[in-house]
Every structure is written in structure tokens, then in C-alpha cells.
């Protein structure tokens, strides 16, 4: 396994190098550059326009610019953003990633959980009303034109019914007197989610080790109690109201994202389940007289989980990529919108930084999935 990980590590570095190179030259292939924005000011003398190019390092030959970007990337310093001059790229990304992560990680988890539950159910009871309803509605939502659907959601639930805000991630009237920044709250939200996940896993681990995970186990109540402690902690944090405001703004985009994407997981789970329910061990479990729910959840669904988990891990990782459409329509300024804006204005360091960041996470995701396979399927072993 160690040898495999080392080899994969080497491959990641090589692939990253290719990503950096390809991105750099693709962006460079566009006509014009960032300084062209200033080039069309007749009031600026030619030498001043040249000076602007020098400020951004665009006066250097292409190969030199490439080497500089390569160096910046592999030293972890992505350089200085042209569009946010002179802020370092890493600072711009660090500002945007938490917002995207909170929204899209939540949406991804919600979407996968919904999809998995529905997929499991419709595979188990084929031909029923639930299968037709879930499949048709899921497929319809999966193929719907996202911008139109998102706008419709806003129109219905925010504008007509007034249940939720029209986009944005906070209400300025609430936040204008806040003493902390939104990123501070986002950071704590992520921390809370991470802490709860660790707590839940630890609880499960401890109960399993103690052999107390079966019927009548206290594992679930303990985890739930842990979950319910979260609002208590936030209530006394002094920023609970601010977090609540963010949560209020998250509902509509998360609902939209879940609705348009749960069908993917649902159909994947369904197909995977349909294969496993034909397996001998499922028949054996039924023959033993085990309850249907137990056979479905413990014997069939668990074995059908492998491709679903793979898909989930990739989705979680790519959640940091965000979505230009969803972020744009819901006015949620995350990495997706940042990347689009950077490409439009040829803010090369920011494009490179965002792409490398996403690429790096994708490569790590692949490795995590490979490792997860070993734990999920004992038949898999890497040499």
C-alpha cells in the first residue's frame, strides 16, 4: 500500500505540472491580456501603458512568465491577483472557498442522502408508484435548464411567497452592525461541521469496538445529542444570529441544488442495488428469515454503496469548485464566480491559482477514493 501511495504521489505531482502548464498556455492563447483593459485609455501616454504592463509582469517574454507562474505555484505562492492588485491569489481564494464549501458541501450531502434513500427504496420495490414518481420527477429535474429553474425557485419562494431572501448570503441590514466578518462565521460553521463529523465517527467507532452497535444501542441518541448541542454552543457564541441569517440564505440554493442533482445518486444507487439484490447472499439473508428492512439496508444497500461513495467523494471534492450558474443567480460569491471573472479579465494568476487549487483537490480525491476502496471492499488490494 505504501509503495502504491508513493507512486500515486509522483503521478499527482506530474499531473499537477501538466495542469499548470496547460492552463497557463490556454489562458495565454486568448487575444489580449489584462493590461489591454488600460490600453484603451487615450489619455494615457504609450510609456505609461507599458509601465502598467510592467507592473503586472506582462512585459516579460512568455517563457519567463511561465517560469514565474510555475515557481509561484509550486512554492505555494500563487502570485498577486491582477484584478485584486496587490492582494495575493491565495488570499482571494481563501476568502471565497469557505463560502462555496459551506453551500456546496451541504447541498452535496443533502443531495446524496436524498438520492441514496430514494434509490434504495425504488430498487427494493420495483414497479411501484414511488419508482415512477421519483424517476420521472428526478429525471425531469436533473435535465431542467438550471438558470431558469433557479430563477423560478427564487420567484416562487422568495418573491411571491416571501419565505426566503432573494439571493445573497446575508442580509446587509443584519450585518452592517456585526463586529465579525462573514468569513469568520463561515469558518466556524465549517469547523462545527467537521467537529460533528469527527464526533459521529468516533461515537460509531467506540460503540462498534464495544460491541454495542446493535439493537437498542445508544449510538444514535448520542450522535443526535451531539448534533443538538450545536445550536446550544452557537447560541452562546455571540454570532448565532449571524449564522442563522446565513442559514436562512442557504435554504433556497441548497434546495435548488438538491432538487436538480439528487436524481444522479438515486439512479446510481438504484442500478447498483438492482445488481446486489440478485446476489446469493441477499437470497440467503431472506432465507434466514431476516426482516425485509434489514436485508435491504444491511445486506443489499451496503454492498451497493461502493460506486455511490466513489461518486460522493468526487462530488464533495468538486464542491469547492462551486457553480458559476448557481453562485451567479443566488449572488453567492464563491470560487465559481471568481474563476469566471478571472478568466474574463485574464487575471492569469487568479485563474492559475483557482485551477491548480481545484486540480489538486481532484487529484487528492482520486487517491482518497482508491484508498477507500480497500476499506469498503476487502477484495481490493493494491500491490
Amino acid at each position, binding site marked *: 500500500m505504501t509503495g502504491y501511495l508513493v507512486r500515486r504521489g509522483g503521478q499527482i505531482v506530474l499531473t499537477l505540472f501538466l495542469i499548470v502548464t496547460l492552463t497557463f498556455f490556454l489562458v495565454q492563447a486568448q*487575444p*489580449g491580456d489584462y493590461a*489591454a*483593459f*488600460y*490600453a*484603451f*485609455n*487615450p*489619455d494615457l501616454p*504609450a510609456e*505609461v501603458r507599458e*509601465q502598467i504592463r*510592467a*507592473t503586472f509582469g506582462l512585459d516579460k517574454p512568455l517563457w519567463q512568465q511561465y517560469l514565474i507562474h510555475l515557481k509561484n505555484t509550486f512554492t505555494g505562492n500563487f502570485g498577486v491577483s491582477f*484584478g485584486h*492588485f496587490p492582494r495575493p491569489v491565495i488570499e482571494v481564494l481563501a*476568502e471565497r472557498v469557505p*463560502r462555496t464549501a459551506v453551500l456546496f458541501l451541504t447541498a452535496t450531502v443533502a443531495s446524496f442522502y436524498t438520492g441514496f434513500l430514494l434509490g434504495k427504496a425504488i430498487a427494493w420495490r420495483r414497479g411501484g408508484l414511488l419508482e415512477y414518481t421519483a424517476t420521472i420527477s428526478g429525471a425531469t429535474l436533473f435535465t431542467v435548464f438550471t438558470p431558469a429553474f433557479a*430563477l423560478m425557485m427564487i420567484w416562487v419562494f*422568495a*418573491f411571491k411567497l*416571501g419565505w426566503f431572501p*432573494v*439571493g*445573497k*448570503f*446575508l442580509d*446587509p*441590514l*443584519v*450585518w*452592517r452592525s*456585526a463586529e465579525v*466578518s*462573514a468569513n469568520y462565521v463561515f469558518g466556524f460553521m465549517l469547523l462545527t461541521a467537521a467537529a460533528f463529523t469527527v464526533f459521529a465517527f468516533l461515537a460509531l467507532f467506540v460503540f462498534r469496538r464495544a460491541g454495542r452497535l446493535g*439493537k*437498542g444501542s445508544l449510538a444514535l441518541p448520542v450522535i443526535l445529542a451531539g*448534533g443538538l448541542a450545536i*445550536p*446550544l454552543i*452557537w*447560541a*452562546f457564541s*455571540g454570532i*448565532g*444570529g*449571524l449564522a*442563522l*441569517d446565513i442559514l436562512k440564505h442557504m435554504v433556497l440554493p441548497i434546495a435548488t441544488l438538491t432538487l436538480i442533482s439528487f436524481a444522479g445518486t438515486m439512479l446510481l444507487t438504484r442500478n447498483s442495488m438492482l445488481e446486489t439484490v440478485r446476489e446469493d447472499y441477499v437470497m440467503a439473508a431472506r432465507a434466514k428469515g431476516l426482516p425485509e428492512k434489514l436485508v435491504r439496508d444491511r445486506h443489499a444497500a451496503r454492498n451497493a454503496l461502493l460506486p455511490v461513495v466513489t461518486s460522493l467523494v468526487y462530488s464533495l471534492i468538486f464542491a469547492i469548485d462551486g457553480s458559476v450558474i448557481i*453562485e*451567479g*443567480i*443566488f*449572488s*453567492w*460569491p464563491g470560487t465559481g*464566480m471568481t474563476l469566471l471573472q478571472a478568466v*474574463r*479579465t485574464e487575471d492569469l494568476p487568479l485563474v492559475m491559482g483557482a485551477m491548480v487549487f481545484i486540480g489538486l483537490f481532484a487529484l487528492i480525491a482520486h487517491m482518497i477514493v482508491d484508498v477507500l476502496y480497500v476499506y469498503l471492499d476487502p477484495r481490493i488490494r493494491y500491490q
Partner: protein
Amino acid sequence: MARTTHTTHTTKWLIWLTGLGLILALLVQLGCTREVEVVREVVVTPTPQPGAAPQAGVPQATVAPAGAGLATAAPVPVTPATAAPQAAATQPPPATGAGSGGGEIEEKVYQLGISADLTTTNVWAYLGPDTTIWNQYVLGGGKPALYTYSAQRYDWIPSLAADFPSALLEESVAGQTYWTTEIALKHGVKWSDGQDVTAEDFLFTAHTAADLELTGNWPSIVDPEFFDHAEALDSYTLKIYFKKKPGLARWQFGLAFMPIFSRAYWAPVVAEARQAGEIVEQQKVLYSHVPQDEPSAGGYRFGKWERGAFAENTRNPDYYFTDSVVTEYAGGAYAEAKPGVYEFSAYGETGGDKTLEYTVGPYADGAIYSVYGSQDAAVLALKKGDIDFMLNPIGLSRGLQEQLQGEDGLTTIENPSDGVRYLGFNFRRPPLDNKAFRQAVATLIDKEFLTDTVLQGVAIPVYSMVPEGNRAWYNADVPLIGQGMSRAERVAQAVALLKDAGFTWETEPRVSEDGRFVEQQGEGLRMPNGEPIPELTMLAPGPGYDPLRSTFAIWIERWLNEVGIPLRADLTGFNLIVEKVFDQQDFDLWVLGWSLTLYPDYLEAFFHSRNSELEGFNPGGYNNPEFDRLADELLEETDLETARRQVFQMQSFLADDLPYVVLFTTPIVETYRSDRLEFPYTDNLGGLQDAAGLTTTVQIK
């Protein structure tokens, strides 16, 4: 049985814990929060005078937004934001207590929507490498300038200056010849930290910009080719030294509009920057500074920036110009007065019909600029009442205008924009250097048909390089080639022009009897030298980038083909056009656009022959010594009236000589919540967005 027990057990837990969760959520909702409930106060008292001041930082000249070029005109000349005189208090006014009890804070907040976030709050950077229209909307209003433009009419008027400057004098100091001018400043204008705004602040700002060789818009404000240095004769008298005689563009409409920054606040930052080594490093240190409580002298001071979400400016209760009454008269006079403090009038005798009168605010306690990722979302927010007005340099698209039609509490306004779209010719390639040929092309283009019939009024035909909306500089007597002609008349006129110039056809074009279409297309058109006209290519933006320009291009191709001119419209990307036209000069004709400044010195930049080199602004290579002479005179002119005459003459010249066929401009359509806002005026070149939403003069109902 065991399973049933387990389920019941878990259900109990779930119910118990859910209840607990609900209680906790309620706790969070009710207490332990720091939010302030804001109640909008409804003003029931009659409005004294709709107020609009000499707008602080009004973007009188268009600054190129990063995204706007994608949707509207093409290359955009960038000029400085100007700042009007303002003064300030020592303490911020977080809220205006209304005495309603209960600890509620009652405020009148002007809520604006913007389409992109700020990129900086550093004013040096926002006029430097971080120039965006969004930065300008928010940051442009807090700094004083010596002079500014008057509302609506764009008269050049004093702001921080007490009066007009002394005439430029040529004088010799220590063997060096300078052009100098003296300016007296108003007394009593204060920064929000309580210090006086003095001549030292001007010196500090101008010298910093010059010494640190600041880039972006700075060189067009403090032009190192002209500006040498300034002196403070006393705290309220400035003397400026120019290396050579500056024309209006460099002095009155350049340096005089420079935003002035607080020396007391910025001096330590600049001192640190100067220690940073090379100039570029010095600039980086200066631009990197994140201001905290930077003093303002405007109607508002910068309050808060929640990145990606909103920015807020808070009212400056001691703004110097608050309660000033501004009056503009039909006879051209301008008057401004604050009883017991100052009075000023210019441009003729006051009296007669008033065209505009208002009292300066600000009337709102704060202005919040909320960021919306799309116009659709912003429009829904406007309809819902989350925002009062949207700031957008390109206005509302047709689809969104229709969405807002008939909505209660909303009013839509339309204003001309200070920009043009044009068709340019490459004079290096015959027959494009032939004046009769260009006039024939101009005659064949039926702008009114396209704007009124095809484009259903979303564009306005234009005939001069100075759009009609720029009232002070527009020449209404420019030749209107082809206007009002039928198709038959246009074809006949074009054929006559070409024939007179020596062009010949193998088959001459013929118009149908009813005069509605060309039934016989012209063929075999030859130039006066007998050679056939080569295949011509017209570069134009594609419909994805700008459907208006691409529509024009397609029709121009058709109309020219009908008379036998072998033209092909090449609809392509904006960047590709720029590269071919400006960087390579490898083209025949091109269609692009310009956003323009109020003072039309751009006429020199676009059409003087010295600018026809590669990457110059006259890529068509237009070369006319008579025009060059006029342009040179304009650059050196220091008298407004003479400059106006020159600009009028240049417009007539260009409308006849046609290095560009000016095609159209687009109106700026904006919608605001008229149930909440009352503007002192809504007719404004470039729309109310060009006046930054009139934050210092808008009344909140």
C-alpha cells in the same frame, strides 16, 4: 419484539431531542445576537427642494467596468472620477435616533444594488490598478476636488476652490520656465477627523501621484508631462507649476478634478512606501494599505465592506455643502449658495427661468451597496423592495425592462449614454481613402430604419462623434448624411456620389419602381483608376457579444452589396477585432464603440495623424493636416468658449470627412423605487448611475 422496543426507544430520543433543538433554536433567534433591527422611517414632511449637489465623485467621465465592455461598447477610455467639495464631522453618525423608544434605531437607508464586488477600499488603488466602475460607485464620493461639473449641464464650477483659478501665467523661476496658476480654497471645509482640508492636502496628493509614478488613471489626472509641482502660498492658497502650457484637458478637466486625500492620514503610509525600494515596490506598499477610518470630506464616509456581500457608506453630518442651494437658469447662469457661509455664481446673470434647483443633502443616513451576481436577481430584489435602485453602467436589458413595466412603486427612466458605436475605415487601403466612397457608404446606411424598425428603439441613431446628450459640446449643425431619405433616394445618392468620383459599374444598380428595394444589384464596381474594388472585410462583434452592432453589420453588408460594393461582414470576437485593428492594423473596415468623456479631447486621440502608428488610437490612419491643426489647437486651448468653437468645428469636419461613420448610441434605461426615493432630477447623460445614484441629494420617503 426486540426490534419494536428498539424503534420505540429511538423515537422517544428523537422526539425529546427535537424538542430540545427547537428550544435552542428559539434561544438563538431571540438572544445572543448582535443584529440591530432597522426600521425605515417614513418621512411625511413635505420635501423642501429635491436635492442634488455638485455630486461628490460623480463619475462624470466613464470608467471602464471590467464586465461592461462585454455587453456594450468596446474600448473604453478611462478618466478620473471627480470629487466635489465636501466637508465632514468628527464623529460617525451610526444612526439617527427617532425617539420612538424601545431602543430601536430608526434610520433612512438608501439601498443600492451593484453587479460586482469592490476590489479595494484603497483610494489610491481604485484610481490606479484597481479601476472598476463598482469601486467608483462606492468610493468615488468621499474626496474633495478643486473643481467639478455642475449637475445635468456639466458646467465647470468650483468645488473646494473658492472661485475660478487665476489665468495661466508664463513665469521663470531659477532659470526654469513654468506656466502657473493660483487657486484660493474655501475656508471651513473639514475632514471627518476634524482637520481642515487645506492646500497641503492637495500638494501631498499630487506630489505622491507624481513621485511614485502611480499608474492606472493617475497619469491622466496628474500628467507628468505637464505637472511639475505645486506650492501652498498659505493654507488656503495654492500655486500650481506646469512644465508647459496645459490645455483644458490637462488642467481644468484633468488636474483640477483630482481627488484630494487627507495628508494627515496618508503621510505615514506614503512615507513607508517610499522606503520600499523600486517604484513598483513602492506602489505595491501604497496600494496594499487597507484603510481604517480614513477621513472623508464628502457627504458620506466609507463605513463597512463585507466582501462579496455589501459595502456601506455612512452619512457625514457635517458635510460642508449640506443645505447649499444650487440653481441653474435657462439663460445659462449657475448659482450656488449656503446662507451665511458662501455664495457663488457664474456663466451669466442669475435670474429668469430656473431649469434646476435643489438643496444639497445627504438625506439618507447610510447608503448600502448590495452585490448581486446577476441582473435577474437584482431586478427581483428591486421588485421585492430589498433595494431601491440598481447601479449598472449599461442599464437594464430589454427583457428586464419588460419585467418591471407596470409594477407598483417603480418608475423607469431613460437617458442617453455618452458613447457611440461606429464604422471605421482603413485609409491605407483604397477605395476606403476616397471621401466620396465613404460618403456613399454613409448614405446607404439607414440608421433610423435599423434603430426604429429592426431594433425597436433600443438604439438611437447618431451623426456626430459627440453624442447629443453631451449638451455642452454637441454641435447640432453637423451634416446628417442620408437622414430622412428613402431607400431609392439613398441608392441614387450613393450612385451619384460614386459616379462623380470616377467609380464605374459593369452593371449599375437599379431600384424597383416603388422604390422599396434594389431589383438589379450593382456588379463590377471599379475604382477611379479602373481597378475592380477588392473584396472588403468588415470586422464586427458577433451577436453573442453585441446583437446591436452585429445587426448593423449584417444590414450594412446587404446594403453595400446591393450597389455592388463587395463587402463581407466578419462577425467575430471583440478581442480579435482589437488585435487586428489596433495591434496589427490588418483590416479594411471595423465596427466597434467608444465610451466617451465629457470633455471631447478624445477627438484628437482618435483622429490626429500622429496617433496612427501601431497600437495608436487612430488605427484607420486618417490623416488630414487641417484636422490635425484643429486638434493641436484644442489640446493647447485654455479658454472654454474657444475650445467649444473648436470642438464644434471638428465635429462638422469629421461628419463630412467621415473617418468614422458614427452609427448609434444606446439609451441607459434604469428603474428605481419611486415609492421610496425622490431624486432632484432624473435627466442625466449616462443615467443616474453616472451620477452614482445621486446619493447626496436623493430624498428617502
